[in-house]
């Protein structure tokens, strides 16, 4: 279907057939076929059973907890990310390179190891927990712990999307505003913020999307109490453990649909950001 099309510009370079063949074969075996298998499995349930599984009380409570904690995690990362991106681009200070390198730690460190470290730090005898728990702030085995685990594993997104935009910002507009008597806050609010906002939004959306599917870090710190600290990914895992395959398939399908919606959203935001960057 591809090789005969006149819309293909092949030029002189070889390798179209073989790379297309390898790519399609690999994508079918590794990505498409497993996805299809789960869609078929879910379809075999029938609409009524699917609906009753995904709207059961326990499932609904996991959506609430997952969305709520992911929202908190995204808020944490949005503020932390904006601060870090700003400081790393605009200021010089000792240890700057070390911090810039350390930012990517959450992507390099296995999520399970992050979870183990976080639960140890925030448990009653932990480095932070011993001070926080007497103050009535419970993090380990509580929803706040889930939010912190999500925030840790998706921390680099906002920083790494805002940083390049902030770097490419030419400072002539800022200087003009300064000459005209604008205060630093006004410059940020009216000049810098509108320029970095699309990137900031894209980073936040990526962070939120990652948080919705997080599992490894959460399983250590959440305590896994139904209706209290049980996220959707965890309920899928529990249903598999109970050999309740229909429930696992239906809930995983919900997660997959949400993931695709988030992928669509982030792609739209990034396309907007690109157009925005080209215009300015």
């Amino acid at each position, binding site marked *: 279907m591809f090789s005969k099309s006149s819309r293909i510009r092949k030029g002189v370079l070889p390798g179209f057939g073989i790379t297309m063949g390898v790519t399609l074969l690999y994508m079918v075996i590794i990505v498409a076929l497993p996805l299809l298998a*789960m869609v078929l499995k879910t379809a075999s349930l029938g609409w009524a059973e699917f609906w009753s599984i995904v709207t059961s009380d326990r499932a609904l409570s996991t959506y609430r907890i997952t969305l709520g904690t992911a929202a908190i995690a995204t808020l944490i990362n949005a503020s932390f990310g904006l601060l*870090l991106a700003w400081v790393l681009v605009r200021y010089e200070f000792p240890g700057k390179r070390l911090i810039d390198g350390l930012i990517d730690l959450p992507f390099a460190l296995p999520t399970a190891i992050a979870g183990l470290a976080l639960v140890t730090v925030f448990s009653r005898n932990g480095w932070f927990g011993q001070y926080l728990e007497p103050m009535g702030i419970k993090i380990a085995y509580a929803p706040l712990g889930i939010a912190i685990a999500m925030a840790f594993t998706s921390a680099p997104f906002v920083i790494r999307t805002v940083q390049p935009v902030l770097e490419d910002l030419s400072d002539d507009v800022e200087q003009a505003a300064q000459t005209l008597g604008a205060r630093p806050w006004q410059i940020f609010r009216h000049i810098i913020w509108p320029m970095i906002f699309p990137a900031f939004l894209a980073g936040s959306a990526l962070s939120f999307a990652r948080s919705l599917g997080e599992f490894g870090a959460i399983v250590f710190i959440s305590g896994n109490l139904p209706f209290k600290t049980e996220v959707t*990914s965890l309920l899928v895992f529990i249903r598999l453990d109970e050999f309740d395959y229909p429930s696992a398939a239906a809930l995983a399908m919900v997660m997959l649909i949400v993931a695709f919606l988030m992928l669509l959203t982030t792609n739209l935001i990034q396309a907007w950001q690109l157009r925005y960057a080209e215009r300015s």
Partner: protein
Amino acid sequence: MANGRTAVRDNGAQKKKRGPWQVALILAAVGLSALFLGVPLAVIFTSAFGGGVGVFWREITEPSTLHAIWLTVLTAIVVVPINMIFGICVAWLVTRFRFPGRRLLITFVEIPFSVSPIVAGVIYLFLYGSQGLLGPFLEAHDIRIMFTVPAIFLVSLFVTCPFVARELIPLMEVQGSDEEEAAITLGATGLQTFFYVTLPNIKWALLYGAVLCNARVMGEFGATSIVSGAIRGKTNTLPLQVELLFNDYNTVGAFAAASTLAFIALLTLVLKYILERKAHG
């Protein structure tokens, strides 16, 4: 996706005197990074070595942990080269040719990044498991994939298949194909062109992608915990072993195993730093 290849630049920074706001922001950024990123890292190493090197060594050389280390390394040895070749194929295809569905293909390759590790495990279970699409066929032919080592390879291929491709695609797009076309016109074969013209141009980005791919393969937890069955001493990778030891209340053992992965994460960050510089001149 955020790809973190932004180098810290000095020239954009303001070299003027530091105002109180600037000092406050820097202190907040450094303090929060230390608390949020530094402390979890520190707690891993202090807990792993808290009982001395002897205790650490005894825990790490415990047979099931040793087996988990070996299985994790084996998975990386199998998965990373395959996804490097796949990444090169995809990048060559979408940057050297224009064809209908090209953008769709690029989006499709990125899918595993958007899918939760748990969902990745579940889709493989419903393909190869006894309840799955190929289950009856595999059983009839007495082939077992689920809860074996090959299942770990397959699911790792899934979760890391975009890593190399997404480092190579933007780079090869920018580089263009002039040099390769010249080589072909002058009579070089396709493979000669690839090895003598393309590969030298993309080698650092290729390695960079491979390093990130490796980190994810070695650290994958959710997907492997579903498809491997986490059988002690058989299909238990290192992250699963950490969880198992933690649930056994063997905290020292868990942290000893975790510290090896944390060490690999630090090594990844160092390699990433070096390769980023090389890849971008």
